[in-house]
């Protein structure tokens, strides 16, 4: 079996981890990867937690790229920062999946061996509720939004630009996003 991190060397560090009280995951690393990284080496500590491992997997990717803007991304709906997500491995709301989509996709694949759902779909599910295209997600990297109002204002500017450019597909996406944020702002319990 190959190391789940480098996927080059044979794995020789195996361990299982209990998550949320009742589930268990198996992990396999080579000794080099296990020893090299702080998060991984903590698996030799008693208090090693799965979230730390996941943090290791998630955090490592972007540290290397020296791309610190990624770390500043904030989910406009629940204020989960990408840093928080790396630390706790917890999504704060459904919009986190859109905001962090591109950043987490590969890592989700690493955990599940797959990145696309098959199986049950809720009966009343509307198909238009899709993951946002890349442009919107990367836009949010440039603008660190701290509240919904700023986010809406910014999206409105972008909407105007899109209409000027007659890019109506993009405009529709932006309009829906604004609508969702507005609705969520009212609906969020």
């Amino acid at each position, binding site marked *: 079996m190959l190391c789940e991190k480098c996927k080059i060397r044979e794995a020789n560090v195996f361990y299982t981890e209990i998550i949320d009280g009742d589930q268990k995951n*198996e992990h396999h690393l080579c000794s080099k990867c296990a020893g090299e990284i702080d998060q991984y080496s903590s698996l030799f500590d008693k208090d090693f937690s799965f979230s730390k491992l996941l943090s290791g997997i998630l955090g490592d990717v972007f540290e290397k790229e020296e791309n610190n803007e990624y770390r500043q991304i904030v989910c406009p709906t629940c204020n989960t920062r990408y840093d928080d997500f790396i630390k706790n*491995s917890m999504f704060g709301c459904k919009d986190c*999946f859109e905001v962090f989509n591109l950043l987490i996709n590969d890592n989700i694949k690493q*955990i599940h061996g797959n990145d696309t759902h*098959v199986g*049950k*779909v809720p009966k009343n*599910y509307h198909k238009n509720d899709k993951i946002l295209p890349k442009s919107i997600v990367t836009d949010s990297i440039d603008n660190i939004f701290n509240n919904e109002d700023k986010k809406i204002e910014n999206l409105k500017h972008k909407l105007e630009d899109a209409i000027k450019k007659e890019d109506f597909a993009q405009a529709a996406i932006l309009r829906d996003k604004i609508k969702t944020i507005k*609705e969520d702002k009212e609906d969020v319990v």
Partner: protein
Amino acid sequence: MWYDNVSLNTDYNYISSRIRLARNFNNALFPSKLSDTEAKKLIDNTIGELSNISTDLGIHTNADILDRISEIERMSMYDRKVLNLTLAKKKTPTGIILNDNEDISIVINGDDHIRLQTLSVGISLYELLEKANRIDDYINEHFEYAFNEKYGYLTTYPTNIGTGMRAAIVLHLPASTQSKGFSKLISSVGRFGVAIKGLHGEGRENHGALFEISNPKTLGISEREILDTVIKVANQLNANERKLRESLIIEKRLEKQDEAYKSFGVLKYARKLSLKDALSFLSSLMAGSADGLIDLTNESKLYSMMIGVQSSNLLKMAGRPLSEDEIDEIRAKYIRDNIGELL
């Protein structure tokens, strides 16, 4: 309770099955982001909205708030498989809808807004999934779920996204546990896409020879495929156990019979029993009884006694704090009262 009647045989070592679905509502922040006030409101709304669940689905349920349930009762609910350890110890507002024999539970605002669980004795994951789906659809008629096509059901932890489903089977594997290749077998089942854990005892120790197998992955694999895989591995573990037990019954009949009778003797007459001893003797007796080496009046109650001997249940029965010695004394008495007679 749902586990009051567990019948095992040399070729049938399935104790129980469990399906758990994790769901979140579409219009609310996930539980970790809710303030206590918001969480309480969400719980009240949910319990209110689902107040007709008993009549609509024909299951008698009660709703409660975990804060109102004592710490000991919550730990006992953990031992009875109603809650997981995290939920039993959770301090923030959490609601629960539970039916009379506790084989159906809906935890509200746990790790996710909804944690729906169905339980049964023996191996019956397909039936449990059908039951869970019926309740899931019912909840979904009242609340829109957080879902997208790519990641499926959206959950707090990335390890639950997709189907949001955990399917688990508990097996009694006393002969396998003692066989040489068992630790190898345990580490190899991971390759088939399932996880295995011992239910009682820490680290490498295991008391009671109960093992739970479940699916670690939830994304990119359908509910049916998950069930097929878990069942396939459960069947293999059961077949392996059967083979070992069949040869033990022939080759070491007297030893095995002696072990069962001695276990019964200790359980029937001991005045003080540690949890470890109680579980080990109950396990030996369960095996002897399943193999037809000893006949008991209360054969089908042995598994429920494995839950009954847990400290949480004994503390609950006593209704007061107990020292370790007192717990061991009460444990022995509980067993004497419930073990029944030889046939």
